[in-house]
């Protein structure tokens, strides 16, 4: 076998260089964070799409207080798990952006420090403060409240629907076969079906004075079974208004193409609809009963790491800076989600789209953050998908309730 010695040696050396280089980088970067932190740097993990919106606020804060704020853009899907894994090692950030439904997990893992909003707590929307509180302690500085609502194609159907049946009737009158779309999937999507469920008076958990009570499962009450029966009647073997083959992309396409006039979705899809040339109006979720259809509210905010070496600066930055109207409005402009600060929310509501979502949000309830909710999610969607596809509604719902109960008390 011929071997070119020179090149082999060179390759070998290059490999060693690369390896040591990698080792150097990995230890180097983590270490840099710490060294700088001692000199007054706040490391903040931010959803990559919002780095620009926060950059101005971070720079202004640096200028005013002399604290360097380093924004690290991260993929939203990775933030939670990375935060939980890195905080105990001391290499995590001082602050991370997140959502309130992470709270149970973050708190159980002991990676998040309580935050004191003081008197400013009264300046936020009540749903935002409720969502930021876990077992009686506030852990999150909220900056936005997000909930789903019905997007209506105002060119096809000029008037808002008064009830679910009215919505379908108005759509059919406009000549559409399936006027209403909502994102589902083979495993269902209970988040998007929750407004209908609450309209039947079946929340997931009851509440006590500390928030949701995991020992009080309300999912399987009589209202839940009525909801299941209704859902079955709207499924494959009934009107076909719900279809588990419709995923997010298909629902979006149907609305953009004008084959559906109503789309139950969140503010994240409004931009696409407007860009697609649809004349969008935002309506409350038409209720299948007389009761209000309350969607889940997701509240976004910032958490302080329990291992942060800069807790004072972190608290100051969040409470006294991110919690101001200007910064909340800047974050609003980046994401088009209703600000959590009441004053900023009012300013933002001059936009009819935001006003529409805010009106629905007034009926919204915070999505439970308690760990027991994890046990609900894993059975909930598949049961709803089963009902939509023709399984016996009441029996499926009863099995769902007993499965969830068993998983919670395990």
């Amino acid at each position, binding site marked *: 076998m011929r071997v070119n010695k020179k090149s082999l040696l060179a390759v070998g050396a290059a490999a060693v260089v690369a390896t040591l280089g990698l080792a150097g980088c990995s230890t180097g970067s983590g270490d840099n964070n710490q060294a700088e932190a001692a000199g007054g740097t706040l490391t903040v993990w931010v959803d990559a799409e919002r780095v620009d919106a926060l950059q101005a606020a971070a720079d202004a804060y640096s200028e005013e207080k002399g604290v360097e704020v380093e924004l690290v853009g991260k993929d939203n899907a990775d933030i939670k798990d990375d935060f939980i894994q890195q905080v105990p090692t001391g290499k995590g950030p001082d602050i991370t952006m997140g959502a309130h439904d992470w709270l149970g997990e973050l708190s*159980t893992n002991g*990676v998040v420090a309580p935050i004191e909003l003081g008197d400013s707590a009264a300046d936020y929307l009540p749903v935002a403060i409720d969502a930021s509180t876990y077992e009686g302690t506030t852990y999150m500085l909220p900056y936005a409240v997000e909930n789903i609502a019905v997007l209506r194609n105002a060119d096809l159907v000029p008037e808002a629907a008064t009830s679910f049946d009215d919505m379908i009737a108005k759509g059919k009158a406009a000549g559409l076969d399936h006027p209403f779309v909502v994102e589902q999937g083979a495993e269902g999507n209970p988040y998007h079906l929750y407004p209908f469920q609450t309209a039947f008076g079946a929340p997931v958990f009851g509440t006590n004075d500390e928030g949701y009570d995991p020992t009080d499962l309300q999912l399987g009450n009589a209202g839940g079974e009525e909801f299941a029966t209704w859902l079955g009647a709207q499924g494959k073997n009934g009107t076909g208004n719900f279809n*588990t083959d419709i995923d997010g992309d298909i629902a979006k396409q149907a609305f953009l193409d004008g084959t559906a006039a109503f789309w139950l979705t969140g503010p994240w899809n409004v931009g696409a609809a407007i860009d697609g040339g649809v004349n969008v109006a935002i309506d409350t979720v038409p209720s299948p009963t007389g009761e209000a259809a309350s969607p889940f509210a997701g509240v976004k905010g910032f958490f302080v790491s329990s291992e942060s070496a800069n807790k*004072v600066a972190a608290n100051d930055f969040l409470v*006294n800076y991110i919690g101001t109207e200007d910064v909340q409005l800047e974050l609003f402009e980046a994401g088009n989600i209703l600000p959590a600060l009441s004053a900023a929310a009012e300013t933002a509501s001059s936009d009819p789209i935001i006003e529409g979502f805010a009106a629905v949000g007034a009926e919204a309830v915070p999505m439970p953050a308690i760990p027991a909710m994890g046990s609900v999610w894993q059975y909930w969607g598949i049961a709803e998908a089963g009902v939509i596809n023709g399984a016996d509604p009441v029996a499926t719902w009863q099995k769902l309730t007993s499965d969830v109960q068993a998983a919670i008390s395990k």
Partner: protein
Amino acid sequence: MTTTVDEEVTPDTSGTAPKPTKRQRQAAGIADAASGGIMVLLVKLLALGIVDAIALFALFILVTADQWLIAAIVAVVAVAVNWIYFSRRKLPAKYLTPGIIFLVVFQVFTLVYTGYIAFTNYGTGHNGTKEQAVSSLMASSLQRVEDSPTYPVTVVDQFGTLGLLVTDPDGDALIGTNEQPLQQVDAEFDGGKAVAVDGWTTLQFGEVLARTDEITDLAVPVSDDPNEGALRTPDGSSAYQYTSTVEYDEAAGTMTDVTTGTVYTDIGTGAFTSADGEELLPGWQITVGFDNFVRAVTDARLLQPLVYVTLWTFAFALISVGSTFFLGLFLAIVFNDMRMRGRKYYRVAMILPYAIPSFLSALIWAGMMNESFGFINQVIFGGASIPWLTDPWMAKVSVLIVNLWLGFPYMFLVCMGALQSIPDDIQEAATVDGAKPWAIFRLIKLPLLLVTVAPLLIASFAFNFNNFNVIYMLTDGGPRDANAPIPVGFTDILITMVYKVAFTGQTRDYGLASAYSIIIFIVIAVISIIAFRRTKTLEELN
């Protein structure tokens, strides 16, 4: 390495030729390189210089960060690398060192770490050290006294002891430290807020930040009565009155809930546990011996799904290997035929599925196989509603089809190489002896081919046994088995089922997941060893 290269290197020993032949010149070049030409030496010095510079830089950073163990490892490796490459004798080591370093960094470390995690309770609620858990529990047990006011404060210092200069709602100034409860004091005011007092130095914002740790621990008792709580300042400018609902006794290792009187004791399970078994989370990480393995094999919820998941895993891996191999082999034979025109272009087209990341392909296939809207049903079958991914049996077929699409190019490449290395004269000899093409293939080519390919088939089996990507991206194990007590589906293989068991909802059980992956590793290792033994018989053909 093909045999032709071997021939070329064989030194020309005749030595009678007047001029040096090409081979002789090459041999001389190799000898020259071995003895070390000046260029080689320079390149070597440069490369080692870069290595040493990076190692030094890493050492510098590591030492300043007190990472002594890693620093020592880097130093030892750097010295060893220098020694090996400057030595005249360590020829084998010169070849092996880079590979070994990569092996250790990327493989051995991961394996050892997985093994270690399998013996710990690392997971949700057991995420850090005991100190972290205690401080986190203490921090979250602080409750602001109801209806207590916000106190504007100034952080002050006296001979290294921090104190809080508090302005109470009446506008009076109070001062206190960790030991000394609040007492009235005469202070300078600025806009209604006490900002300085004689005998104490007022800390500026920058100094406050520099002493964050001390300020976080600073709790000034409101009065001599501990039940009234203490003032703490989260941001250095406002303080709030808190009482703690738990008490930690370090000597006894107990947490006591002062509101209910419940005592939570460290009983060695990695969390403070009350007498009736209630755990206070967060807990901390401990080693738990073989607990994870015991849980892995005795989990009652797994009993029912485990049987069909295991059967399907074997079926999936075997059928995938078989189908990809035979399709790849068939195409390799077809495209190896000299009579076919434009073979190169076809070959490139064949390799395309291999060139697209499997994540992407699987997601695209999932879209195409959607029952109501997918391309396959809508366009190819003209609007039929074939439940590609939603019927238990069809989903299995779909997974196999997609995996065939993803896997055949690899087998195609391997078989093509192996076929080309079978000498043509064997085929000619067989033809002369009157053998039919099928007989030539079955009795001569296939056995020769298997000698080369069999180890790759075993490796492919091991790969498909753990082919997480395809299952996760295409069906996520679905359709779900509604009767199973865990969220397992009909196309779940062992590794995806393990993923669902260890990472359900908000629970992350890394210890259990590691234990499972070690068990699966042992299963695959045993199968592979047996299979390799069997292939030895094939090699005797040669």
